[in-house]
């Protein structure tokens, strides 16, 4: 499987997107902290995290005996660069801000 296939496969699952959302809100969490927000076994969460790590969407830092999980946005950045030209970015930012303001920022969470 290519690196890009791994990224899309990892993102295709709502549980894994939820884990990325949790890290986006508070980066560098332990497995235990993440499990508090997830309605599933610790083992299931571990497997989802492993898939995210294999896709390079997670970076791991060890702090003493604590394993901290970080959202690694580099592969996502590469995807956006592939299809968005630099001259479109300012316009897309404006459009995104407009949409967010109009919709009051509760959409797009799943």
């Amino acid at each position, binding site marked *: 499987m290519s690196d890009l296939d791994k990224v899309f496969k990892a993102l295709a699952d709502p549980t894994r997107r939820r884990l990325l959302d949790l890290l986006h809100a508070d980066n560098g969490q332990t497995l235990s902290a993440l499990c508090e927000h997830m309605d599933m076994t610790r083992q299931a969460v571990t497997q989802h995290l492993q898939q995210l790590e294999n896709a390079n969407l997670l970076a791991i830092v060890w702090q003493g005996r604590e394993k901290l999980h*970080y959202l690694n946005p580099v592969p996502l950045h590469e995807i956006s660069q592939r299809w968005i030209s630099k001259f479109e*970015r300012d316009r897309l930012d404006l459009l995104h801000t407009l949409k967010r303001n109009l919709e009051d920022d509760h959409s797009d969470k799943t």
Partner: protein
Amino acid sequence: MTTATKPSFVYVTYIATTPEKVWQALVDVDVMRQYWVGTKAGSVVRVNVSDWKPGSSWTHERLDDSRTVDIAGTVVECEPPRRLAFTWARPAEVDDTSKHSRVAFDIEPYSDGVVRLTVTHDGLEHDPGMLNGISGGWPQILSNLKTLLESGHALPASVAAA
């Protein structure tokens, strides 16, 4: 990492190249100018200038006529071709080390012909403005660097600016 502080950000990219080439890209202005630029139209190319000895100063300068210094700090570790670490501060706050955050680049051989490059930025938790500014910046720089080292070609924007 041996530090006790929890990083604010960790960015990882895998590049099909050698540790030596990644190292050169981090310390050599002529390579830096080919990738240290943002995605938006009109972004200015910036380079990091230093002699890269521990204890020396470094500056993050615009590569235009102004040579404006946007960021400055002190080189903490320099172990070619494995680890480069420096502090990171606004030029006005460079004398107050309590205002410095810390950046580290770790270069590790990953598999045959592939290098894992990790950028860690810590000490930003009390500086939301800087945190916002850099959180979009690092993925861009890493992605540019990967493109440059794997294709051997500079990005169109940096050619225009050079």
